[in-house]
């Protein structure tokens, strides 16, 4: 920008650059929001044990089904039942 300063060129260049800069900012904000939402959903999926079930399916190499979910529940039952909930 400094290379073409003077005679109003600054204003012209700034006007030309602004949409790009804005787009960059918008993209960064969008990426930030998407990232945060992804983490939020991942946290919910971990808390609600959906991720644990997916890991089980991957480990056991089976498709999701009532039988597979039953096996997953049996596998995690002991650990879950021993987990205290705080006061």
């Amino acid at each position: 920008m400094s290379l073409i300063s003077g005679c109003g060129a600054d204003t012209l260049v700034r006007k030309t650059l602004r949409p790009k800069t804005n787009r960059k900012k918008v993209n960064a904000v969008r990426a930030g929001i998407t990232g945060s939402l992804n983490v939020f959903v991942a946290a919910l999926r971990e808390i609600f044990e959906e991720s644990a079930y997916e890991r089980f399916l991957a480990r056991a190499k089976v498709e999701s089904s009532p039988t597979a979910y039953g096996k997953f529940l049996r596998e995690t039952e002991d650990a879950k039942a021993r987990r205290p909930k705080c006061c």
Partner: protein
Amino acid sequence: MPKVLRILLWTFISLLGAFALATIALHRGEEINAMWLVVAAVATYAVAYRFYSSFIAAKLLAIDPLRATPAERLDNGRDFVPTNKWVVFGHHFAAIAGPGPLVGPVLAAQFGYLPGTLWIIAGAVLGGCVQDFVILLFSVRRDGKSMTEMAKTEIGKVGGFVSYVAVIAIIIILLGAVALVVVNALKSSPWGTFTIAMTMPIALLMGLYLRRIRPGKVLEASAMGFVLVLAAIFGGQWVSQSPSWAAVFTLSGATLAVLLIVYGFAASVLPVWLLLAPRDYLSTFVKLGTIALLAIGIVALRPSLHMPPLTRFIDGTGPVFAGTVFPFAFLTIACGAVSGFHSLIASGTTPKLISREPETRMVGYGGMLAESMVAIMAMIAASVLQPGVYFAVNSPAGIVGQAPETAAATITAWGFPVTAGEMSSLAHAVGEQTLFNRTGGAPAFAVGMAHIFSNSLGGQALMAIWYHFAIMFEALFILTVLDAGTRVGRFMLQDALGHIWKPLGRTSWYPSILLTSGLIVAAWGYFLWQGVKDPLGGINSLWPLFGICNQLLATVALCVATTIIIKMGRARYVLVTLIPLCWLVAVTFTAAYHKVLNANPRIGFLAHARQLVAAGADARLIFNDRLDAAVAGALVVLVAVVLIESVLEWLRVLSGRKAAEVKEAPFVMTRMALEEQS
């Protein structure tokens, strides 16, 4: 950010926090805005997290980003799973946040908002967060070992045994105390009782939906369950207005206690997927949403606090529970400031999910800060009520009298004006027959929460809905603690009995399941029954007893932490855990002394027993007081033994008579660091 700007920013936050703290501490005679409490807490937490926790991480714990965690080394895709730090944070927070930080501050508000608020803020940053953080890191360095196992290996067999006994005791007394909170909230309330009763079939339906229709779609099932619970709240309004149905759901305290005991037993013996797991999901769903909603409501409404900073009851004559501000305010608010129970969570599932050591700071220290913020919100919810209303709701009939006019006159004579008509209008507005003598903290919190919500969303027309939403939220919380706690207690008992006769230790053997579940339920059920029958309202005895148990467990956790710190050769930083340890010892031992031996019958169990003997009262009531005294005394003796064991161990190590040897898992370089380097 340039260094100068950073310094300016942190100076500004520190000054803002100091100014807000000074405002809430020094303001007298005029109401202050609740935002002062929020600003004081947030600024203090920010400064403590930025500076104190990083000091602990760097100097005391020497956190090593290159060291592989058990989640990485032992990754089995099941218990040990390296997980994103925010995900672990959410998971940890969901596990530590229970009804305690909501009920405790509401009860402690009888001293005014100041003692409780200061304790929540200072107790959290200097005690609770430190305990959670160090125990989490020490567990991470020991392959996710539990607190009781660490007590055994670092202090000795006595330490392990006492922490085991303390955990069982705290579970039993906690369950009795929180069940009493539910009973008092639902007593003579057809609307509340119907809503909570409906959560049982809703949970069963969720369990079947997850098992048979959409396997594993928990978020979907929880959202569906939540919608059904909301429908149940509206259905409850209809039930309360129908004379025939209202009669069915209008239950006495004793009936509700029996129903809760039956429920606890059923939840412990039924398969986890059928009742426990879906209820847990539903409760977590409601919990996370409601806490966020309450935070938004407080910031949007910015209510004034009607409760004075200090009330006359700091002298120990309070109607909610008897006892002076020291030590009882510090026992009443356990979760939210320092909670020994957290050490079980910090050495349970969480350490097995941590992928890098530095993340323990955010999860352990930061998670407790978030919990402490919940306690601040509960304090605000209690303090936005007119003090007269607060005391009318929270005072037992044995203190203020049964008739509304008598109760209102007694409370007004204390300097907190309230009329029977005013209470009747309020009860009508929230859809209850009466709000007098609704002890336990939950109804007062619900009225405060309904006040905040209805003023920021929906107006007075929705007051009754918000009140019952709050009651449902708390009862759901508590019932989840009840069924999970009964099951945990059952497993612990089975482990212990398995040493005596092997089949009893088999967790899938039905006779053993029935026997141990029955024993645990009978134990907490007894304390619940005792609370229901107590002429002083039950909370007066049970909540301080629960506080003593919880803080004694924190004492054991801090003993373990201090022992490890000394063995790590970091004795020069030992004050970080030693100061909260000394404070907790002072609080719990003083409180236990008063609860057992104080000559005032409203405080001392034995004095109360003597008073009952003199009055020729029921032998059962006399036995209950003696039992409470024995439990408090026995726990203090056991923890004193751990304390002495720990101090002797510290002296042996510091004097060089014993080698400073920590029992950590061997160092393994993390693959993540190697990948980053390459």
